[in-house]
């Protein structure tokens, strides 16, 4: 992003307040990558980062008539993002399931290719892992693994972007792998305890 030009950005926001879509598009393009990276930094989830970015711009657009006379556009936009991200972290801190999902994203090697999931893996464990994720992620995964939908088809059916679909599947697989690995070692230890 080029040097922050307060004056021209203030003008853009004024125009957006009047419903100027082109001005909004400009602001969208100006801020999208920085916001996205910021959220990925704090959430470690590309899929969720996409959702929050979209949410941010949606909030801005829906409340555009309050954008008159914003003195510091960058601070204003950033604050919306920051609050949503903070909320995300706060919600996670109250839920073991969410924290575990973030943990899986944080710990496992981030490779772009989808990891293969052995079919022999206990279906029970897979289901358990899945039940800890959001309904949305479960559905995407289900459409991919059990319905055989391509990323494009899933994107079509759900209205999510292709990039988000892909990231969701990568993240779900990571989580399942980690969950199974951990459960397997837990069970090994428990049986050791009971046998001895």
């Amino acid at each position, binding site marked *: 992003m080029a040097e922050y030009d307060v004056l021209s950005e203030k003008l853009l926001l004024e125009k957006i307040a009047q419903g100027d879509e082109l001005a909004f598009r400009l602001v969208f*393009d100006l801020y999208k990558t920085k916001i996205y990276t910021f959220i990925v930094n704090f959430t470690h989830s590309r899929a969720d980062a996409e959702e929050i970015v979209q949410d941010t*711009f949606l909030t801005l657009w829906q409340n555009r008539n309050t954008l008159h006379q914003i003195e510091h556009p960058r601070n204003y936009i950033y604050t919306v993002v920051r609050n949503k991200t903070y909320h995300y972290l706060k919600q996670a801190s109250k839920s073991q399931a969410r924290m575990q999902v973030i943990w899986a994203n944080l710990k496992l090697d981030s490779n772009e290719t989808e990891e293969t999931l052995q079919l022999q893996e206990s279906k029970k464990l897979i289901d358990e892992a899945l039940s800890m994720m959001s309904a949305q992620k479960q559905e995407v995964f289900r459409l991919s693994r059990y319905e055989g939908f391509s990323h494009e088809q899933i994107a079509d059916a759900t209205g*999510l972007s292709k990039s988000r679909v892909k990231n969701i599947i990568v993240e779900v697989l990571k989580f399942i792998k980690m969950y199974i690995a951990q459960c397997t070692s837990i069970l090994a230890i428990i049986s050791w305890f009971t046998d001895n």
Partner: protein
Amino acid sequence: MEQNNERFNYLLKKYLDKNCTAQEFEEFFTYVADPVYEEILHAQMNHNFKSLNPGADVHQVDWENMYQNVIHHRGKTKMKTLFGKWIGVAASIALVVTIGGGYWWLKTERHTSAVMLVKRHDVKPGGDKAILTLADGSKITLDNTVKGTLTHQGNTSIKQDSSGMLVYDTNAEPRPAVETAYTNTLTTPAGGKFMLVLPDHSKVWLNSQSSISYVAAFRGHERIVELKGEAYFEISKDPQRPFIVKSGRGSVKVLGTHFNVSAYPDERLTEVVLSEGSVRLTVGAEIAQLKPGQQASFGKHDDAISLKEVDVDEAVDWKNGYFQFDNAEIEKVMNKLKRWYNIDVQYQGIKPGVKFTGIISRDNNLSKILGLLETSGGVKFQITDRTIIVKKH
């Protein structure tokens, strides 16, 4: 807890760098949960934002899709919950075990049902099919293969354009003093759908087993169409000539707007759902003015109109190529399937009380959809010929 900013900053840095231990990870989140640290977390976030550089992964994001979602007000991407049954299950937490640095809650008491996809005789989905009846009674069969000008009605030419839509094109010439009214009717069979552009450029999506009648060139002070079945309208603005959809005893009057009318003879109620703009519904002596997001429904025997807020996407799912259900009863689901797949439905024994929620493309074969519905539990299907038998499970 005494404020320990140093410790928090240390944990945050480890968290951001992705090299914290499991204990540090858990500890970090206990700080996040503590409102005392809100301010310092905010400060760190501010600092991070100011000094960051966008990562390489930004190029993989589908920005165009996102922008379109935003500009069209598509909010929290509404992912409906699935037909299968992984979620919404009570879990009791049995143990916490620490192994080599990992904290995990061991959950017991799972209740999962297998996702069963039952293979059966397959029924193909519907497609673009309709019959156009002209003023003189002659009929033209339409599908998506015929292109170009089909015929004329007075000064209006009727074409099928490259996307398969039926388009009425009135010449720009001033209307003659005495004009013949050419009434046309577009009818779709079960398993059919069609899209039509009326002489005033209004767009109509016609669902299965429906028919719409109109004149080839609108005259007078009103644009009137008659509907049986279901259609979605995008009416072009013309304040001088309100657009009126007549259906049974109801009459929907609009100036320029997007809405859906569902008036199937075999359904108890006629429903009008408004997507954008404003419409006025008249049923006998009763009148109701609708706002976007509202649905008005009325029955066959009296004039009472009831209004409620609905999910517009669910009401208009068919137009976008999907079946969408939100806590829908079996009858509602089966009626939608019946029309698109051109099949009969019979209920054996008690009607299943299970409700369905989900989205699935209309391009699927029937077996896929039924298989999915069965995974919700509580219902079993059997196909014989073109009849589905529905049983409580």
